[in-house]
């Protein structure tokens, strides 16, 4: 059976420094060009400007384009503990929640982030994706997310954070890793041999970063064809049981 490719890490919308045309339509064109069937995505407004406006933008775009699966975000620096705020968002059909500590300038140990995670845990069964960057991030995240039982996807794991990623993932079977920043030609086989290929998910960080490069990194790797298909879509389908039914 052919596996549909699902990119777990995309965005759309303007950024202050990157390409001019990063509209949702442009993202769909990028998916079509690269023969990627689905992507989880969110508006840059939610990351860079305001999460409320961004989440509305994301829902609107995803209702206009079938290939786009909506992702919500909350900026913990703007989270003042209002009752019901997380729960209201959790009631909307978002398939994942994303957090951007480095882009928004808050530490992994940030107390409002822990509050949000706690409320999300009670409100909705949904994966989280968190961007990591520096050595130490993933260990800090593990401590903050102690008790969170849903899937946690680490975005941006690079060669200098891969050892820590593996160390934590060996103890946290609900942690997953996304591929776009792995870069080393042996990173995928090391992950396969340590934490298993089933917890590796294809991501590109498109349209800012090249989806073609991210795809070729997996397709030309030394993984078996079955393992490549698992990374490109099978693992994501297993994680989000509903994605095939969209």
């Amino acid at each position, binding site marked *: 059976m052919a596996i549909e490719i699902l990119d777990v890490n995309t965005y759309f919308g303007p950024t202050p420094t*990157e*390409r001019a045309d990063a509209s949702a339509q442009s993202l769909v064109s990028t998916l079509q060009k690269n023969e990627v069937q689905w992507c989880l995505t969110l508006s840059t407004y939610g990351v860079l400007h305001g999460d409320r406006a961004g989440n509305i933008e994301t829902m609107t775009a995803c209702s206009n384009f079938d290939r786009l699966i909506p992702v919500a975000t909350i900026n913990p620096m703007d989270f003042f503990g209002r009752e019901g705020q997380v729960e209201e968002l959790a009631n909307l059909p978002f398939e994942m929640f994303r957090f951007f500590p480095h882009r928004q300038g808050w530490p992994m140990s940030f107390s409002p982030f822990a509050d949000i995670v706690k409320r999300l845990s009670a409100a909705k069964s949904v994966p989280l994706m968190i961007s990591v960057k520096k050595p130490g991030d993933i260990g800090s995240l593990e401590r903050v997310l102690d008790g969170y039982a849903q899937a946690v996807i680490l975005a941006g794991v690079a*060669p200098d954070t*891969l*050892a820590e990623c593996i160390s934590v993932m060996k103890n946290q079977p609900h942690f997953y890793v996304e591929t*776009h920043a792995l*870069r*080393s*030609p*042996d*990173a995928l086989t*090391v992950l396969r041999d340590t934490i298993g290929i089933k917890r590796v998910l294809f991501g590109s960080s*498109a*349209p*800012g*970063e*090249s*989806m*073609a*490069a*991210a*795809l*070729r*990194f997996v397709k*030309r*790797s030394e993984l078996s064809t079955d393992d490549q298909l698992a990374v490109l879509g099978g693992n994501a389908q297993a994680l989000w049981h509903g994605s095939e039914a969209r």
Partner: protein
Amino acid sequence: MSRFDVFAYYTDTALSHCMASREQLVRSMQKYDTSAIALVSGVAADCDFVAGNQAVRDIASTSEGIYGLVTLNLAYPEESLEQQRLHLMRREFLACVLFGKVGSPVTLSDASEIVNAQRRYAKPVAIYAPDAEAVHEAAKIAAEFNGIKFILLSMGGDDWHGAGTAAKRHLNIYLELSGSLDTDKVSHASAVLTARKLLYGSALPYSDPELVAAMIDDASTLTASDRSRIYSQNAESLFSIQADTD
């Protein structure tokens, strides 16, 4: 399309062993369609430039397309001048390469003596330029020594726009494409500079060559002729080694 990789390390790493020995190097060249490669010693870049340069010299072979870049150390100007004398008259060494001190870029004041001495060998100077500051300083060096050709390795990383601007202003600057995987990087750089100033490089084993290759292949504004130039012809011309690779 056969590739001339102008920037790869001869080194063993904990994550990847694909460039750790002559046999593994040859295997990697075959795997990535590489007909010629310019090696920087990982030992030389990290700590011991004298021993590292010798290690590259020991495995270099012009008939097999295995070339070297002589690593020079700004903190050891006398020894660096000696390394230039020792290696740069040899056909298997194509250029010298400069790395900044830890946490700081290669500056004009630090590099003047070494770059001045490079003139007598009539070979380019490669400068590792992973960020905007490094590009800015490299541009000053290129302006001061306008009779020497410079290669900016990693072309500024995420600040690749600045590298394009510097290369447009200083005609003696060439850009090596490893570094950022931004979707628009190759198209933008070729539009600003023409494809003649761009060089394919991988940064193996720290980065998978297929990442850069995918960006070149995916850049819709490039012609087949442009790609041929970027993959090999520009390097052959810059290093004056057409006869060797033929």
